């Protein structure tokens, strides 16, 4: 009671500095304690441990055995694993770009198509958002059958016998396709939200001025949506960088390493070859890259931005 009174007085007169009790000092931290604990143990500590591991060679059960300095990094950037690493880099960057923009485009299209009423709109909206509830493992198994060479849907319908997932020309596009399908749900949800916030009057006055549908989209929708779209692209990029399940279950990084995204190569190095040191080095490189890309995106957003 005392403390409250003194604070109230100071707010009104601005004279005395409020004295916080010890408890008041630590109270916020008590509220944050569980969160901080979880992050400390399962996020910050492992991050530093990974950096530590990346400087060692590990034995067949994963213990750090031989100090290796920065050679792990050298090996993957310029040494014996470089070709494979840079291939993974290239595959990943293409994958992330295609999936981030592809799912954005799909989400944008489905959002635009459901802004105005029509019979069945609720059903269509539900379907467009549904992929958010589909696990990538479940989707992977479904698509495995769809693209099965002998009895899959695609070959049945097209009458071909192409072995899609084992064809170096098709494996990558198909993995991109599946990832876009999976991410379309959340894109639809967020972009619809953004669209809903654009006042109708803007469109009405544009229509009165004689602007057609596409002109309206260009001059009203896209600018108004741009914060949403920027935010969504960042989410998509982060998500795409983390795509793992589809690759593991359908192509295992192949054929010819055409789908060997960095995430998968880290998994292989750590959990198949048990070279934790080298895998740790790859993770750190990936981490740095994601940070750089995200920072660039934030910078770009700040420049282009806000009406």
């Amino acid at each position, binding site marked *: 009671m005392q403390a409250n009174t003194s604070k109230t007085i100071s707010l009104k007169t601005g004279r005395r500095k409020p004295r916080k009790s010890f408890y008041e000092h630590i109270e916020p931290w008590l509220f944050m304690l569980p969160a901080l604990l979880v992050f400390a143990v399962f996020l910050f500590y*492992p991050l530093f441990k990974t950096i530590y591991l990346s400087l060692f060679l590990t034995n067949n059960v994963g213990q750090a055995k031989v100090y290796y300095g920065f050679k792990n990094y050298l090996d993957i950037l310029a040494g014996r694993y470089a070709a494979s690493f840079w291939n993974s880099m290239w595959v990943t960057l293409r994958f992330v770009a295609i999936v981030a923009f592809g799912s954005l485009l799909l989400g944008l299209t489905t959002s635009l198509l459901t802004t105005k009423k029509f019979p069945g709109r609720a059903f269509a909206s539900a379907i467009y958002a549904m992929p958010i509830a589909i696990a990538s493992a479940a989707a992977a198994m479904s698509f495995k059958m769809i693209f099965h060479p002998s009895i899959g849907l695609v070959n049945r319908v097209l009458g071909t016998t192409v072995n899609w997932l084992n064809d170096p020309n098709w494996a990558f596009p198909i993995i991109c396709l599946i990832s876009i399908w999976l991410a379309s749900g959340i894109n639809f949800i967020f972009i619809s939200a953004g669209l809903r916030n654009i006042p109708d009057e803007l469109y009405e006055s544009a229509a009165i001025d004689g602007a057609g549908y596409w002109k309206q989209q260009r001059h009203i929708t896209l600018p108004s949506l741009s914060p949403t779209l920027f935010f969504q692209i960042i989410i998509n990029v982060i998500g795409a960088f983390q795509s793992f399940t589809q690759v593991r279950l359908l192509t295992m990084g192949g054929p010819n390493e055409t789908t060997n995204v960095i995430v998968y190569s880290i998994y292989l190095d750590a959990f198949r070859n048990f070279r934790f040191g080298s895998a740790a080095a790859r993770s750190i490189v990936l981490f740095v890259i994601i940070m750089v890309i995200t920072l660039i995106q934030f910078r770009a957003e700040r420049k282009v931005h806000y009406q």
Partner: protein
Amino acid sequence: MSGITLTRKHKNALSSLLRMGLNLPLVILIILPLIYTFIMSVIPADELYTRLLPTRWDFVSYLNVFEKTGIPRQILNSFVVAGSVTLLQMITCSMAAFAFSFLQFKGRNLVFMIILATMMVPWEATIISNYLTVSGWGWLDSYKAMILPYACSAMGIFLMRQNYLTFARELHEAAKLDGCNNWRFLLSIVIPLARPALGALGAYVFLLQWNQYLWPLLVTNSDKVRTAQIGISQLYDIDSEQIGLMMAGVVVVLVPSLSIFVFMQKQLINGLMAGAVKG
């Protein structure tokens, strides 16, 4: 006069039809994999290699899923893990978000930024060490190994904070004047007001956890604690009985998450949208 009205009505009807027509192919495209999965789960074994659409539906695969596989137990495990994580996140995120929105303290913005930054750390950078940590503690093949690392999330804190910021500051002042301490304030006033956001967060986290694959794969060994996603991925084997089994397994595992989606759809979408707009 009547002539013009008719034309507008016609115009509306035509646009509706046009919209239906444009939406139809997309809807079909998106729902197609699910429909196909269901069809493959009920096509009888003798038609599997010869026909695309079945002439009759054979539900034996579903029986096999429940009798021959570990899937029922794995679904239970998924529920336990996803449910626990959801509960824990609702608690920890509410608490932390409260500190960021209602309480003043030194370093508040810095800590918040750091927590946001964790959203950008790819799990690849931590999964190896987390695995070593967890196995060093002997936690392998247990529920806690799958639950505790996810007991809190930056996304959750962010969402709840966004929500709390929409509440009037006066509420807090009024409560303090009434002698209400912060804990009671959080529990009896803030949380009930934040119910829609909590609901959205809960649904979203549940779905995310239900769909987890790599982490449970690494830390579980037995069907006792293995989760459903791992289970269906282990069903692959190209044997005519197995394909039906595999597809039935996928359907069975999809039912819970799809149900949550259908029932919580409004809450989930509204909650996520509210978070997105402010972001």
